[in-house]
């Protein structure tokens, strides 16, 4: 019994080891963990449960930090200490430190005040985030600090601006934060935390218009709005029952236009909202069945097809942006591009375009095929794919490279007889040709490749990238595997939309488990969806 277990372990481990050793391609430096841990150690040992420290203890702490840490010197020790007391219950500690500094005759520097403002902010949020969270005295202090720092410099840098915004949202003068955000734009784009704080405050004070402006700006800069913003928004609009459906509709349209995915927290909040107002809103958590059918309302999701306008834009821009770019010699040669365009005009339009090499190598042979047996196996796959389409009477184009002329002649002849074939130079990139041929043939053509086409999506630029991804989602077939009997298993493209959209009168909104600051392209259908029906009162 032991031996069997061990053999299984060896098998599993072999696979794991292979992936471990082959997946690392970039040298990654060790993250600097040591220093942060030491500071956390200090925080625990010295600050735990205390709300005040004597002047002597503060001086000792200062000396300890300066002597033991190479990156801490007299200039930054104050801000570091303030940074360590960053929890809301340590406000008193922070205040006592500043008092100690003032007693010794050193006025704390701007960074120290900035950190103090951050502590005030966390206290404000911890105490509920309404007007009474901080005492009038504290709010006055915050405003004093703000005026002080603002008066020292004409234009402030982005770090100070962010700190000041954190402080201002706890008071009534928070609208001056907008000026600060404009100032931030001079040297850097306003940070996500700054936007988050301002938007949350805007929604809390029921200034919906301002909140939306900030949201639009945020998304323009490609920052992902945090769940707190949406939660705040839902709270704000739930007060007024008359406009509730309109506002929610606006939110969902926003999610649709910018391909945003909300988190589980927000989804649950919407469900709760629907329970309170069940006569105008019904929301359920659901999932999708085959072919994009919603489990709860049994409606099929919308088709993902592009409108004609978008498709033409993509078609025209493609060759120039991806293949030719600045120097056509990097990916191909001018004669080859010309030949290919002529060939496509002559033998097109196609029903499907196949990436010959990608399909042939889909079984994952790591070394180039040396043995004849391997070669014939690869080619067999390609031929099977061609056969699959042939049986459905479709006209296909196969793309390859000139070295494929050396592959076994009989099977190559079968491919050449049943499909149009174009062989590019061995040194050229064949993917742009593939996409160009597919686009040229119209909206109904699909292509066959396992490649994610990330490089080409990037080269198209941010405005065309979304269009390209949607088109790719609708039209990409990929080969999964081939059975011994010669049948092939393919992964069909996802023909329905995977962002938030409306079907008849019901909104279908996908959601994810956790918030991510940087979202990468997803090629899978989201698991969790919400089915929402907004009922008009009339």
């Amino acid at each position, binding site marked *: 019994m032991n031996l069997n*277990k061990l053999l299984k372990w060896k098998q599993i481990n072999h696979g794991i080891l292979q992936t471990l050793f082959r997946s690392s391609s970039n040298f990654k430096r060790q993250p600097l963990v040591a220093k942060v841990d030491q500071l956390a150690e200090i925080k625990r040992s010295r600050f735990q449960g205390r709300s005040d420290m004597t002047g002597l203890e503060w001086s000792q702490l200062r000396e300890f930090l300066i002597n033991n840490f190479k990156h801490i010197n007299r200039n930054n020790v104050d801000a570091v200490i303030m940074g360590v007391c960053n929890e809301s219950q340590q406000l008193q500690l922070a205040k006592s430190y500043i008092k100690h500094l003032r007693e010794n005759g050193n006025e704390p520097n701007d960074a120290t005040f900035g950190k103090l403002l951050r502590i005030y902010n966390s206290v404000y949020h911890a105490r509920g985030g309404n007007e009474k969270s901080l005492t009038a005295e504290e709010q006055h202090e915050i405003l004093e600090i703000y005026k002080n720092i603002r008066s020292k410099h004409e234009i402030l840098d982005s770090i100070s601006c962010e700190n000041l915004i954190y402080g201002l949202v706890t008071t009534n003068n928070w609208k001056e934060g907008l000026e600060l955000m404009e100032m931030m734009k001079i*040297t850097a784009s306003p940070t996500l935390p700054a936007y988050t704080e301002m938007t949350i405050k805007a929604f809390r004070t029921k200034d919906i218009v301002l909140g939306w402006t900030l949201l639009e700006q945020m998304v323009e800069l490609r920052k992902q709005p945090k769940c707190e913003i949406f939660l705040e928004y839902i709270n704000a609009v739930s007060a007024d029952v008359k406009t509730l459906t309109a506002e929610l509709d606006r939110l969902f349209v926003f999610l649709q236009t910018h391909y945003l995915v909300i988190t589980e927290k927000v989804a649950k909040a919407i469900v709760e909202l629907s329970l309170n107002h069940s006569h105008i809103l019904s929301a359920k958590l659901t999932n999708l069945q085959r072919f994009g059918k919603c489990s709860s309302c049994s409606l099929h999701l919308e088709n993902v097809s592009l409108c004609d306008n978008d498709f033409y834009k993509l078609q025209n821009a493609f060759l120039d942006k991806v293949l030719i770019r600045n120097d056509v010699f990097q990916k191909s040669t001018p004669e080859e591009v010309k030949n290919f365009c002529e060939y496509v005009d002559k033998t097109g339009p196609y029903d499907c375009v196949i990436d010959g090499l990608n399909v042939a190598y889909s079984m994952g042979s790591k070394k180039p095929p040396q043995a004849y047996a391997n070669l014939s196996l690869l080619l067999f796959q390609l031929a099977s794919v061609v056969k699959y389409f042939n049986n459905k009477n479709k006209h296909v184009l196969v793309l390859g490279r000139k070295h494929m002329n050396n592959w076994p002649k009989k099977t190559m002849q079968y491919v050449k007889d049943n499909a149009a074939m174009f062989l590019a130079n061995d*040194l050229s990139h064949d993917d742009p040709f593939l996409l160009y041929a597919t686009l040229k043939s119209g909206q109904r053509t699909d292509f066959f490749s396992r490649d994610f086409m990330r490089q080409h999506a990037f080269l198209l630029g941010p405005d065309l990238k979304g269009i390209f991804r949607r088109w790719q989602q609708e039209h990409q077939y990929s080969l999964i595997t081939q059975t011994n009997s010669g049948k092939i298993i393919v992964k069909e493209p996802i023909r329905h939309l995977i962002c938030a959209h409306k079907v008849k009168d019901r909104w279908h909104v996908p959601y994810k488990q956790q918030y991510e600051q940087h979202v990468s392209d997803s090629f899978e259908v989201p698991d969790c969806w919400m089915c929402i029906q907004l009922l008009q009162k009339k």
Partner: protein
Amino acid sequence: MLQSIISAVGKIRVLELHKATKQLFYIRRFATVNTSSIENHSSVKDASDHTNVRPPRKTVNPFSIKDPPSADGNAAPYNPAISSEEKERRLKVLRLEVDIANQEGRRVPSLNFFQKYHWEHVLTLPSKSARMKYYGFLWQVEIKKQAKLRRKEEKAADCQERLEKLREEREQNGHIIYGLGHVSMFLRIYDSTINHWMNHRLIRAMQYSPKMVLDCSYDQYMTQREAENAAKQLMLCFAENRSHDDPFDLHYCNVNLDTPCMQSLQRYIPTMLNMDFPMNVHQKCFTELFPKDKIVYLTPHCRTDLVEYNHDDVYIVGAMVDTVNNEPLSLAKAKKLGLRMARLPLDRYLQWGAGSGKSLTLNQMIKIMLDVRKTGDWRKALSHVPRRKLYDQQNECTRGRNDLQKGANRVNVKIGSIMEVEDFTEEVSRLRSQRKKFNVSSWGAKKKGQQGS
């Protein structure tokens, strides 16, 4: 060869020879420059109007790519024309940024560390994250400088003590002192002597050896940091070529002296453009200097391996550090000019590891080519590839074994019996040493049978 130099007569002879060949060489070079070019393309070492170090005229190089390409069409190069007031205001805000970040304890150097050229560079950076990375680098420089200063002071204190002790001893000691700097049987060989000797060899190589070209036209594709790295590698190329037994005739082509790369190189080798320094710096392209059918462009992006080194061909290495930009630029250039291309046969002789990429530095390339020319053996030449890039079988085996052990421990399986290291190497060496026991009677005998085979 060194012996001949050490004897005084030999030394003088070498120097004479060096001077003689220099004169010969310059006459010959001027001849080729004047007769070959119809329009007056000024090569950098034009003797006629050579008053200062910089070349008189800049010629248009038809093969250099002028405009820097951008990754996607939207990003314009970050150099909008800004007035000096605007610049002042911006600088003020950036100074404040540095100050606040420093006060917060971030990896930013103190304000008084920054020099004018630092601020010049900061102003060209496009985004805040780029600036923070540059500040991080400068912070490291500052910390290293402080540490160096501290260590220097400590060392100076120690040194003083040692010198005191030594002086006391010397005073008490009445005998002759033997040693370097006092009485010694070794002649002192100065650096300049060795330099003269190496330069002489290099000048002889210029007349008779095959040529190697470093194509310096890739400056627009490199960032500031990469350009400085490239300059260091170019300097090392020259140094290693010079100190090898059979140097190449090294030519630096497509040189544009205003670029950061070339300016750094001039800082490394200040006498680079001098008349009597044996370094060929050309603003022209290599196609104007050498016939196209003899040129082979070495690029890693093509498919054909370099099978055999041909002594008649001129090999070109593109002087580019391509950590950031991985477009096949050298391939594109060679295709456009219609030149033959090749890459080093790395896959045939080496097994590459999973760690770093398959890129080699310029000086490693030159070393490999020098050895290939000298020995014709690719294995010996490719020993200059750093060992850390290659597949380390020993390490991988032990790592695999450790992982397996860990996994087995987790499921409580004993695999000691299977994991016994069957170390054949020890056995074999033991047997061999047994066989090779020293036997006096058969020592030196012609018969081979008794001694180990």
